[in-house]
């Protein structure tokens, strides 16, 4: 009798926890969508901000965000591909591979604000680049590197050994094997990882707010070493003026756009991962 | 003449042994696959009931229905009744957890928990009742002796169970089931993952245990069944092809499929 009661209580507790979790998370998304939709219209998306974001739209913020993550992709992909291939093809010692993995996982755990102050010290001050969107891209690339490396490594590792060995017995050199057998599969995996990483990078504020962004008076940068405006930093600035209703409303609008971008990247990554899995299962 | 009369009387007596479990008109589906088709049988009390048949024929599904462990499988549906202790076990009022303390199960692969030997043996029983330290030791000794493990492990009861050989682990699983003191023990091909010597040890164990428990023993090893069965049931393609007392079953099978299975291990159900 006592056992039955205990069992029932516990099951009730799990149902309760799930109900609370679902409620909170659903409420979140609804609030963001509801408030954001109120602010969205064509002109909002396609005009520049005025009066410190109190009026106007978020055109250049969107452009700025997209520009930075494009830069981050270009920097990150070659690095990640090379690292993953080195781990699976060249580094034979188990201890070195474990060390490599540990260091990359360590990089993954670093809080984003630390990346920000690192960028501030190393690039903006020591290397004297000033506030530059390109530096922001570099920092974002470093931040998402572990994600992309891991995804690439997983897809490269799942290539059955038999393919590599067949190619080698046909007389191909190691690099030719990599170029023809490993790399194509690796690129597919790295793109999936990149999408996941970009979903995170586009929403990050702390790494870039000291080093790549200005608040206003900026449109499209002319060189690599100029600041930009981005969605997350714009939302931050508006949130700090939350008492003004117009600012708040624009903040919701920008949030909805940002969230849509994040969701777009995540969902695409999901589909890409599923497609990869079915290919490797054939 | 007298000998043959005696044989007939013995035959009748065997058939009148009390059924511990009766399966009536039972069907089972998994998703859309019709796994068990109109099963009607009786497992004899205090006997070794061997369920024989080729792989994939539904033997495992059948006995897993008896302790209702198939309830946990998604997409499992059934029709029919299974009678135990005077009730249909699939009745709404039946407490499944209690049922499973009365009908125990030993699986094909020994599933010892990553705990010590004594914790494994007492795992089931300690949830049912509070045992004093003395009672626990007594239970350990009794059940481990019953499975002939006591001499081998009595000095290292606190060692982890995974340090035992596979054959010993399986006997430990049986001891764990015995500790709960069921009336029926279901064994799903318990010797499949064991070497011949350990398998024989389990068979000898069954011959001893049948004096106190009803044994339902699933196997695809005909020789094994010949060695230990009192009552044999041949399942193929989800149906009961033939069932009866072991002696008659193995020497004079009635159905052609039974004959071809016993002789050539081939059945085209």
């Amino acid at each position, binding site marked *: 009798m006592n056992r039955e009661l205990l069992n029932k209580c516990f099951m009730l507790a799990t149902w309760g926890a799930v109900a609370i979790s679902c409620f909170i998370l659903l409420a979140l998304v609804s609030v963001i969508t509801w408030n954001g939709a109120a602010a969205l219209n064509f002109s909002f998306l396609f005009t520049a901000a005025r009066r410190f974001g109190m009026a106007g739209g978020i055109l250049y913020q969107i452009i700025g965000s997209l520009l930075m993550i494009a830069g981050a992709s270009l920097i990150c992909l070659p690095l990640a591909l090379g690292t993953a291939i080195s781990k699976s093809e060249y580094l034979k010692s188990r201890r070195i591979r474990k060390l490599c993995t540990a260091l990359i996982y360590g990089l993954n755990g670093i809080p984003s*604000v630390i990346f920000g102050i690192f960028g501030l010290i190393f690039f903006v001050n020591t290397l004297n680049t000033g506030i530059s969107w390109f530096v922001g891209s570099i920092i974002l690339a470093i931040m998402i590197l572990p994600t992309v490396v891991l995804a690439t490594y997983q897809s490269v590792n799942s290539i059955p050994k038999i393919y590599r060995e067949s190619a080698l017995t046909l007389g191909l050199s190691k690099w030719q094997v990599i170029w023809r057998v490993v790399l194509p599969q690796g690129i597919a995996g790295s793109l999936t990882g990149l999408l996941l990483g970009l979903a995170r990078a586009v929403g990050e504020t702390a790494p870039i707010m000291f080093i790549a962004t200005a608040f206003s008076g900026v449109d499209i940068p002319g060189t690599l070493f100029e600041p930009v405006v981005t969605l997350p930093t714009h939302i931050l600035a508006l949130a700090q003026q939350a008492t003004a209703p117009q600012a708040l409303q624009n903040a919701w609008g920008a949030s909805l756009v940002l*969230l849509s971008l994040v969701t777009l990247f995540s969902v695409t990554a999901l589909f890409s991962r599923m497609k990869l899995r079915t290919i490797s299962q054939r | 003449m007298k000998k043959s009369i005696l044989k007939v009387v013995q035959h009748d007596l065997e058939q009148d042994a009390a059924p511990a479990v009766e399966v009536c008109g039972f069907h089972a589906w998994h998703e859309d696959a019709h796994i068990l088709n109109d099963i009607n049988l009786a497992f004899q009390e205090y006997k070794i009931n061997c369920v024989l048949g080729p792989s994939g024929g539904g033997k495992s599904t059948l006995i897993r229905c008896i302790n209702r462990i198939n309830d946990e499988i998604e997409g499992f549906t059934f029709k029919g009744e299974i009678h135990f202790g005077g009730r249909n076990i699939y009745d709404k009022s039946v407490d499944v957890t209690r049922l499973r303390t009365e009908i125990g199960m030993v699986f094909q692969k020994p599933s010892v928990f990553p705990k010590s030997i004594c914790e494994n043996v007492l795992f089931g029983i300690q949830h049912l009742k509070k045992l004093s330290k003395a009672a626990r030791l007594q239970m350990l000794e009794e059940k481990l002796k019953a499975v002939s493990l006591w001499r081998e492990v009595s000095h290292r009861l606190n060692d982890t169970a995974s340090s035992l050989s596979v054959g010993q682990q399986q006997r430990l699983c049986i001891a764990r089931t015995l500790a709960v003191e069921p009336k029926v023990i279901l064994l799903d091909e318990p010797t499949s993952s064991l070497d011949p010597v350990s398998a024989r040890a389990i068979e000898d164990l069954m011959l001893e245990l049948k004096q106190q428990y009803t044994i339902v023993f699933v196997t695809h090893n005909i020789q094994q069944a010949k060695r230990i069965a009192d009552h044999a049931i041949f399942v193929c393609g989800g149906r009961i092809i033939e069932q009866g007392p072991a002696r008659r079953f193995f020497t004079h099978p009635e159905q052609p499929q039974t004959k071809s299975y016993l002789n050539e291990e081939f059945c085209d159900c």
Partner: protein
Amino acid sequence: MSASYSKVGKSYVMVTAFISTGIIFLIVAVLLMNSWSAITQVGWQLLTLKWNPAAGEYGILSMLYGSFTVTFCALVIALPLGLLSAIFVSEVLPGRYRFYVKSLLELLAGIPSIIYGLLGVAFLSVWIGHLFDLQSGRTILSAGILLAVMIMPTIITLSDDALQNVPNKYREAANGLGLTKYEVLKSAVLPIAKADIIGACLLALGRALGKTMAVMLVIGGIDRIPSPFFNVLNPGQTITSKLGREISETAFGSVHFSAMILMGMILLVVVLILTVVAQHCFNPEHRLYE
């Protein structure tokens, strides 16, 4: 011909690997170098409660305490809710819904920190202010609750993975012995999943410590320990909120700057230790069964 390609290829691969694994050392080195002047010039005075750069006081304890308290609040809320939800998803939910639930959790874990900050500013801090009749709803508790919501998807998804990794045969064996679902979980499943779940909690802890934007907006930015010390309805300051608010206005190279970098350094070291320990928990060599 192909030999030179191979050489180029190999050096490309090795160089990238070197860069990727070396970055973390670079970051640690840069931070260490820049916190050096604070360590040498202020020394043990750093471990005091008063932060007043104008008067040359650089006590960082209030920020450390703030980080600790906010994270503690977050874990107290998120761990029970998250673990119980994970048990539900893994053990109670029918298998056909798992894919949708897991994908949903992943999407939720990806909501940017700044949006949580906005929600906190616009709603949560207002509610807390009204609920407890405070002057301002920007408190340690608000930050804690916000943080809890942010790390819950991570806890749920990782704990669910941990539970799913327990082979089914243990559940079956325990079920076959007539244990109730709660007993099966408590005695058979959770002991095996324990290491992975602890790893998951440590990872969640590390993430919570590092969140900046949401905490920065709702914590109130006061460099003081609340009075009494357990009063979470006071405003406070964490390492991350301090850095977020003030680093860009601090003169580069000054002791002030260096003290702030030191706080960042402490945060980095703690998070790295947590990550290493968590990875150790997940190490498959530590699986004792099978």
